[in-house]
């Protein structure tokens, strides 16, 4: 019997489902960073706002990378529904701490897909995610450095203004 399924699609459906979940997660991250940019603008952290606008764009690019991979492999990419975006933060430290939490969650999710793809012998998906694994190291490191800078600078007096100014160092 001719294998028309394999001729039309080159990854496993389980990987496709997980990648669709990741598309949703990246879209959620993009929307979350947009909400953070909005918070920063409203609270006078204009450089941080720029940082989060940029992050929101990057997350959307990640989403599209996965979306296009599913197109290329003959899968069924699903345009994600994005709901429950938090717009309330107690401080700029809270914003960056939430960012780090979010990035760690994304990293764990990507590692999980790599693990599952490996178990399923889905080499294409596993290799595709190599770039994301390295990208997440960079993303986590950036936010960790910003949190370290916040700790060193302190939030008293002109500290908040200095923090916002220094965030410029992490905008590429």
């Amino acid at each position, binding site marked *: 019997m001719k294998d*028309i*399924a394999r001729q039309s*699609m080159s990854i*496993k*459906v*389980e990987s496709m489902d997980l990648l669709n979940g990741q598309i949703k997660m990246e879209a959620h991250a993009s929307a979350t960073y947009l909400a953070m940019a909005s918070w920063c603008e409203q609270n006078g952290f204009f450089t941080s706002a720029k940082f989060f606008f940029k992050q929101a764009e990057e997350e959307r690019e990640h989403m599209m990378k996965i979306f296009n991979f599913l197109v290329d492999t003959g899968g069924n990419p699903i345009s994600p529904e994005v709901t429950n975006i938090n717009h309330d933060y107690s401080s700029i430290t809270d914003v960056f701490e939430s960012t780090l939490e979010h990035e760690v969650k994304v990293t764990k999710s990507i590692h999980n897909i790599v693990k599952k793809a490996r*178990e399923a012998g889905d080499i294409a998906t596993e290799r595709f995610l190599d770039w994301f694994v390295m990208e997440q190291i960079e993303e986590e490191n950036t936010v960790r450095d910003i949190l370290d800078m916040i700790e060193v600078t302190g939030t008293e007096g002109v500290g908040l203004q200095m923090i916002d100014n220094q965030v410029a160092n992490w905008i590429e």
Partner: protein
Amino acid sequence: MNVIFQSTYYTLYQAANERCYYIDFGQKLVRMSLCQLLSLRHKVNTIAIENHFDSDLNAHGFEVLMLCNKEHLFILNTLEVLDLKNLVDHGFVAIGLSAKTEVLSQ
């Protein structure tokens, strides 16, 4: 046409010469490309079957399923939905696009 998998109510066929699949829904034979079969899988897998057991969430225990870009419309009861989920699960294993059995056998 070759039978890929037969469940209680439905049968999935592969028509290699036409490069497509057919599902016999009993009253209707539906021709599908792999993309349409993937779309059916997504629709079936996103049905919240637990809602069928809560009269507030799904009062009558029916699902409306539109297939092949709204070409076909089916109204399925709980047992039919469960059977279709079963067909989709086993069907994708049988056509080699699901890793389920491979993972289990390792």
